[in-house]
């Protein structure tokens, strides 16, 4: 449990290693020289057999050592792979031999008339002999693989037994409780003191320079790390006393980061100290082991203390995560820190006993004491009354929680007293270490859930920054919140699941084996599944996607924008490039995933049937979309009329086109309609457009005067084009009026409404000035009878005037 640090580093190093290993496997050269092939593989198999023998011996010698067993299994799996590779190496030669034998044909029956030439029969003999040899060698490889698999199964059984033993092994405490034990322990302490003293004196006297250098380096690195950490994450871990009501999410994130960051910094610093001392040769092997043990104690105690402090926050109750009163919170922090310290020291003491070869009884007695103390500490936590009810009286933990603590605490004490020392140790270790890890991970999970809640991300520092500096809207922020919560969850799983598994006595080798298995694929029924291949495919596709988008943006924004390319063409090219890029990315990713495209052909065959029946509309729209992009009857921003729909084109995609009407309604029009029907485009080649304004004038007016007035005012309008010239048309005679029409051309048809409007105003103004009268139809006036509502109240009702005064009339507006 003390090499937690090393194991963490191991996990981090594991992934690239695995990937590298997978790559190396593929690259293995397979063309060994044909003549020496058999002898080469025979000697390779001999080597592998020797390795297997060695591993079998290791297993026999270390049946009690879990870590060694796991290493042995990794070695065996490696041997298995190489055995298989040795077998596969024969394949080209075997197919050669088979092909040649087939060419030679079967040996003629004895006594056949046409005896074959000696050359042929010799060659056949030689080939058959070589094939037999290869077959024998392959048989040996097969036997070896069976044996190695048997050993792997044996290791699994051994490890299962080991764990059962650990929990059920019983020591006789009575035999060990004697005056001898006390002297043993005292002796152990004395020799430990002497050895450490001697090593330290040696280090100071002969290695003082290295010692100084390593210490200074470690401190320097720690200082830089803490300085950078403060600069980068300072805001995340600081509790601001000025904040009245810190939000749940900021409390969570402060608790999480203020546990994680200093702990990681401390672990890095201590690992650096240990590593530097070892690489400078300051410490001998014993001292290095002691130092690692001591580091373990410090890390455990610090982690537990830090975590409990950040959850309970007794100094700033506003920032606490669980509503426990400050005074009992302080007690709980002390108790759990002490528990961490005891568990850590127990492990440290075990290292000392191991190094000094002390008698078993001293180890057992020390562990007994540690188990009893930790049991008492756990029970004491259960005794604390952490809550306060409305009357201000202290309230204990909920009953179930107390019961669990008492059960664990007393259980550990009783188990230790009865001689089940390992079981008691296991209990207290799990409580401290697994408890710490699970609690930290749980806080992280809570935080990620809070972030993914509606509006949760906007409250975080990153969300605030995006909102104010980048102007990201709330809906986008919400999506980012979900995304970041997914990322946090994945990171938590990557970090904490292995740590908890180590804690539960799984070895790094176990996890390595699982990962290898996951990378190579496993089989469920007849369906075989290879996550690594699929992940590779997805990764390649994502890369292709981003490259396409990047290329698209570069082409559109840099090349085509500079080249003054027409926006419609730009849009078409961008869309086509996008789809082509995606198709290429999909194809590459499928082949990167190692998939057979013939499987895809099967799927495509099924799809084509579906297209025939159900998808023909979609496909027709799709093809129409391609035609639209190529032919470009309209482009984004054009004013089009298709059937009853008239509006501006907003987006042309492959299935449908978005048109925004002037009422700002977005109409999504399937592309096939746009291809098959008539589409009017006001702005196809140019934006020139004609506008008409009908004007009716009474017969009393002079039509020449009218025409001149209309012509003048039309020409005077700044948006009306001189060429083509505007015209005034005398269109006809109606019952009441002479009908004129003003026709004018404008450069941008979009401004037509405005121009028409201006012209009408100008017509009225000019006619008033000139005394021309506009025609209108006289309609007989409709008599509107407004009945006065008679007051039918009593006679002595107050007069109306008084009423209005009493209640002022309500004004509208």
């Amino acid at each position, binding site marked *: 449990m003390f090499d937690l640090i090393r194991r963490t580093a191991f996990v981090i190093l594991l992934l690239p290693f695995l990937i590298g290993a997978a790559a190396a496997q593929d690259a293995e050269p397979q063309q060994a020289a044909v003549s020496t092939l058999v002898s080469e593989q025979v000697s390779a198999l001999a080597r592998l057999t020797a390795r297997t023998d060695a591993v079998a011996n290791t297993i026999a010698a270390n049946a009690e050592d879990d870590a060694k067993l796991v290493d042995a299994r990794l070695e065996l799996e490696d041997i298995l792979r190489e055995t298989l590779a040795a*077998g596969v190496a024969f394949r080209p030669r075997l197919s050669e031999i088979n092909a040649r034998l087939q060419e030679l044909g079967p040996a003629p029956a004895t006594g056949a008339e046409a005896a074959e030439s000696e050359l042929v029969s010799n060659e056949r003999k030689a080939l058959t002999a070589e094939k037999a040899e290869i077959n024998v060698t392959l*048989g040996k490889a097969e036997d070896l693989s069976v044996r190695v698999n048997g050993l792997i199964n044996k290791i699994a059984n051994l490890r299962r037994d080991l764990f059962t033993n650990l929990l059920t092994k019983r020591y006789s405490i009575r035999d060990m409780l004697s005056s001898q034990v006390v002297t043993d322990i005292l002796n152990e302490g004395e020799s430990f003191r002497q050895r450490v003293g001697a090593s330290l004196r040696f280090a100071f006297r002969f290695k003082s320079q290295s010692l100084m250098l390593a210490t200074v380096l470690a401190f320097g690195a720690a200082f830089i790390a803490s300085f950078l950490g403060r600069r980068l994450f300072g805001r995340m871990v600081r509790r601001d006393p000025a904040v009245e009501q810190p939000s749940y999410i900021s409390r969570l994130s402060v608790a999480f980061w203020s546990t994680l960051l200093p702990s990681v910094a401390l672990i890095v610093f201590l690992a650096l100290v240990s590593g530097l001392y070892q690489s400078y040769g300051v410490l001998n092997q014993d001292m290095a082991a002691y130092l690692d043990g001591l580091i373990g104690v410090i890390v455990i105690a610090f982690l537990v203390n830090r975590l409990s402090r950040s959850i309970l926050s007794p100094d700033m109750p506003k920032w606490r995560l669980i509503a426990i009163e400050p005074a009992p919170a302080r007690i709980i922090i002390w108790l759990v820190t002490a528990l961490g310290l005891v568990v850590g020291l127990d492990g440290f003491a075990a290292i000392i006993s191991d190094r000094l070869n002390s008698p078993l009884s001293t180890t057992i007695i020390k562990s007994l004491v540690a188990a009893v103390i930790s049991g008492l500490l756990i029970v004491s936590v259960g005794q604390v009354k952490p809550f306060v009810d409305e009357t201000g009286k202290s309230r204990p933990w909920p009953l179930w929680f107390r019961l669990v603590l008492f059960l664990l605490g007393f259980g550990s004490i009783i188990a230790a007293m009865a001689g089940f020392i390992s079981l008691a140790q296991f209990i207290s270790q799990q409580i401290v270490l697994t408890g710490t890890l699970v609690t930290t991970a749980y806080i992280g999970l809570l935080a990620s859930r809070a972030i993914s809640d509606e509006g949760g991300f906007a409250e975080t520092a990153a969300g605030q920054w995006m909102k104010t500096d980048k102007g990201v809207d709330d809906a986008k922020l919400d999506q980012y919140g979900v995304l970041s919560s997914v990322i946090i969850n994945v990171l938590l799983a990557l970090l904490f699941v292995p740590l908890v598994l180590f804690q539960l006595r799984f070895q790094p080798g176990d996890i390595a084996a699982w990962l290898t298995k996951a990378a190579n694929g496993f089989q469920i029924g007849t369906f075989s599944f290879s996550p690594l291949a699929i992940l590779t495919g997805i990764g390649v596709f994502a890369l292709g996607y981003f490259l396409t988008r990047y290329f698209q943006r570069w082409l559109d924004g840099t090349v085509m924008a500079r080249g003054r390319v027409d926006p419609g063409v730009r849009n078409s090219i961008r869309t086509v490039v996008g789809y082509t890029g995606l198709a290429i990315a999909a194809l590459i990713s499928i082949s990167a995933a190692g998939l057979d495209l013939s499987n895809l052909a099967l799927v495509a065959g099924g799809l084509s049937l579906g297209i025939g029946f159900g998808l023909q509309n979609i496909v027709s729209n799709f093809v129409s979309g391609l035609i639209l992009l190529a032919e470009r009857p309209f482009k984004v921003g054009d004013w089009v009329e298709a059937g009853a729909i008239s509006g501006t084109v907003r987006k042309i995609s492959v299935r449908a086109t978005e048109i925004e009407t002037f009422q700002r309604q977005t109409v999504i029009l399937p592309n096939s309609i746009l291809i098959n029907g008539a589409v009017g485009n006001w702005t196809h080649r140019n934006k020139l457009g004609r506008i008409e304004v009908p004007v009716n004038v009474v017969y009393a007016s002079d039509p020449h005067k009218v025409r001149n007035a209309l012509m003048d005012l039309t020409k005077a309008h700044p948006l009306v084009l001189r060429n083509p010239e505007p015209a005034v048309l005398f269109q006809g005679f109606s019952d009441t009026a002479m009908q004129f029409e003003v026709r004018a051309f404008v450069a941008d048809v979009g401004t037509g409404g405005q121009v028409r409007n201006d012209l009408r105003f100008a017509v009225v103004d000019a006619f008033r000035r000139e005394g021309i009268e506009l025609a209108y139809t006289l309609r007989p006036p409709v008599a509107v009878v407004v009945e006065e509502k008679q007051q039918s109240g009593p006679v002595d009702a107050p007069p109306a005037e008084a009423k209005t005064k009493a209640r002022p009339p309500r004004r509208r507006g």
Partner: protein
Amino acid sequence: MGRTPDMVKSILLAASLLALTGSAYAASAVNLDSEPRTITVTEGGSKQEIALGAGETVQFCANGCFVTMPNGDREALTGGETIEISGGVGRIK
């Protein structure tokens, strides 16, 4: 910026497509003869006889194995090969 959901959708699509076609990893054997054939497969420490009816195809051996063909020839497979048995002779494609 606004492309994230699109991207997620595309990746999901690609992943499902990959999962759909992802069965290319086991070795398979097909019997082209008109009579049943038996091959012996040693995989994971145990020997197993697999009987193949006429024209039948089986999948086996996800992580590498040794195979003995009906005529006694041996082969080592890494998983992913296709074996065709005709006239009792196994041939790796």
